[in-house]
């Protein structure tokens, strides 16, 4: 099977490609990249007026499978990913049972093979049951297909465990991802602590509950000289710490979500549970600081922290509702509209943060670039396309997205995984063969 993508503008900062080029895909790999490829025998996609980027990667997704299939499954979550322009996603281990053994990892991989639209990379738990006590069998998990380790929403409070984990992970050259939160400082908080939590009478989570753990992780990464990836950074304080760590060459990388970039805690006056997320939506000042950090290269990755919850679970009192935002299908448009089209960052920077950098951080050598021989994972983006977010049309099983009804300019229009079109919103995805 061959697929020829013609007339698109190829944007790949990793391979330093930034011009109109045709791309030919053969046997799931990129076979040719040239100014003109003739296409008599191939299936043809006409990408005139559009950008072709390396397939986008979301390294922070909750697929809820196994165990909470009423929220999402590997099938629906991967469809949502495809619709959102992602060709690869990494899924967090907080399933039921927890992905802390090769059995669960293998289940995820085999179910993905059968039903997933995009590449699925399981992140295994760092500690058994995410309990923060005993390390998981990291080597066995890697052999079974785990790509990184994290206790996710159960932050690693025990610094000794984090230390031992880093030392052990370093041996296998693998990555630890940490959700930075001091649980004692957060106590039972449900939103950002500050003026609005005082106004609304909701228990606050101070911004420094994140900052102190970011600082601890930076110190451990430096001392042990092992990489830590900081999940969903949300505060100005974290940005400052990461900036100075990077200047010193400490192996720290980090990600930011669209909701932490574009939403602030004044919106909580609605008590809308769709805005309940951890780390919480912070202040306008934090938004600005995060955006600046994206611009300056301090933060490396855009990720969604896609956390689907059913309408019934979110349709309760604010304190009772689970944390989480459903983000796969809005992330790329939110960044295109709010940052790229407003000329705050370039499209190249978007590609770096949504594809090149996550591929490098996760060690996916044949992804995150458009290069002969690389995996034929591509995303086609129309920066002019206008959309209105409608959660009812989501591929995801859940609807908990606070951007509903937002009007956005710019969207992924086609997602190609291993040379196969897994999503397209184009009226005619394929040109007739001549």
């Amino acid at each position, binding site marked *: 099977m061959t697929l020829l993508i013609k007339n698109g503008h190829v944007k790949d900062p990793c391979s330093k490609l930034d011009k109109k080029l045709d791309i030919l895909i053969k046997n799931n790999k990129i076979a040719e990249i040239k100014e003109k490829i003739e296409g008599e025998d191939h299936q043809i996609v006409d990408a005139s007026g559009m950008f072709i980027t390396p397939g986008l990667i979301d390294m922070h997704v909750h697929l809820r499978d196994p165990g909470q299939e009423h929220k999402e499954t590997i099938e629906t979550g991967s469809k949502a990913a495809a619709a959102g322009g992602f060709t690869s996603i990494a899924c967090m281990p907080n399933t039921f049972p927890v992905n802390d053994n090769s059995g669960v990892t293998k289940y995820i991989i085999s179910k993905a093979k059968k039903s997933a639209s995009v590449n699925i990379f399981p992140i295994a738990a760092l500690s058994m049951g995410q309990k923060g006590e005993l390390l998981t069998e990291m080597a066995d998990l890697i052999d079974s297909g785990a790509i990184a380790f994290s206790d996710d929403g159960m932050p690693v409070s025990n610094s000794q465990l984090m230390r031992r984990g880093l030392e052990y992970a370093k041996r296998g050259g693998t990555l630890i991802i940490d959700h930075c939160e001091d649980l004692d400082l957060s106590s039972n908080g449900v939103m950002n602590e500050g*003026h609005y939590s*005082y106004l609304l*009478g*909701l228990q606050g989570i101070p911004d420094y509950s994140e900052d102190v753990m970011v600082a601890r992780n930076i110190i451990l990464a430096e001392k042990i000289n092992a990489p830590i990836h900081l999940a969903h950074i949300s505060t100005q304080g974290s940005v400052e710490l990461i900036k100075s760590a990077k200047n010193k060459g400490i192996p720290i990388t980090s990600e930011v979500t669209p909701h932490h970039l574009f939403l602030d805690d004044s919106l909580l006056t609605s*008590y809308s549970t769709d805005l309940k997320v951890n780390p919480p939506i912070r202040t306008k000042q934090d938004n600005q600081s995060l955006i600046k950090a994206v611009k300056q290269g301090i933060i490396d990755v855009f990720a969604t922290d896609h956390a689907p919850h059913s309408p019934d679970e979110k*349709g309760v*009192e604010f304190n009772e509702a689970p944390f989480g935002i459903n983000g796969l299908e809005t992330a790329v448009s939110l960044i295109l509209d709010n940052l790229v089209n407003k000329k705050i960052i370039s499209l190249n920077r978007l590609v770096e943060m949504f594809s090149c950098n996550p591929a490098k951080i996760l060690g996916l050598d044949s992804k995150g670039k458009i290069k002969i021989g690389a995996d034929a994972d591509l995303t086609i983006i129309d920066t002019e396309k206008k959309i209105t977010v409608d959660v009812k049309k989501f591929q995801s099983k859940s609807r908990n997205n606070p951007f509903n009804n937002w009007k956005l300019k710019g969207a992924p229009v086609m997602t190609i995984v291993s040379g196969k079109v897994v999503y397209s919103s184009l009226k005619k995805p394929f040109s007739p063969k001549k």
Partner: protein
Amino acid sequence: MSFNKKHLLGIQHLTKSEILTILNTAESLKEISRREVKKVPALRGKTIINLFFEPSTRTRSSFELAAKRLSADISSFSKTTSSTVKGETLKDTVLNLEAMQTDAIIIRHSASGTPLFLSTFCRSHIINAGDGTHEHPTQALLDAFTIKEEKKRLKGLKVVIVGDILHSRVARSNVFLLNKMGAKVVLVGPPGMVPSEMAHLGAKIDHNMDRAVKNADVIMMLRIQLERQQKNYFPSIREYRHLYSLTPKRFETAHKNAIIMHPGPINRDVEISTQLADSIKSVILKQVENGIAVRMAVLYLLLGGKERDFTD
């Protein structure tokens, strides 16, 4: 008198003139409770549900009597455990009750924002009888009514509120109301319970009670919950009393006509000395009496009673 609000969710959502309308209406309704026959037909045929998810004596009976004195039918439910535990969501509980054709639902709940949440799917008028640590609008209204009765005004008064402000819905509603009416509010308590950033709500913050009570016109003491000590908001009751209890000595420095208020229930000799609680300067029981008039006014205005139904 016009009152166009559908719900009473909080003081935040009320304008100054709406507050005045409620207070003036309460003033005309107050004498009903002193009549031989304490009942007028203003809300005859209306059905009200009193839905309390937290223990309450004062507020619950106050709403109940207010409704009865206006001839409404009222049914009270108390659930100290959330129905979520039993597998029924709050939404389902309320929709089931509403199916009995209620006109108003009075709700007390431990989660902030719950009345607003109900208003998103309920047909009935929603009245907030205290939501978590957010608002307790009828308490602030009855406090304002009492202050006005005693002081003849609200504007320009120095009102000092002392205690666990962070966790107090009474304090919040009072700050919002007193601010709108032009009083000067000072919030006092240990730093963890009175974060400096609460000044943005429209109040002065002071962690020193001796300084704060000087020349105060109104001193409002809040109940201190003993379990807060476990979370290190203050080291001991002994030390709390030492720093923040209203004692005769501290009270002497207030304005000579100052009044003492407390939303109840009181911890005698913890946040307030028994001697002061029972003194002529204390208006605590007047607050309770006025609570009925204010809640009658709220029910009457929301449920659209006619003025002629209670004036002779």
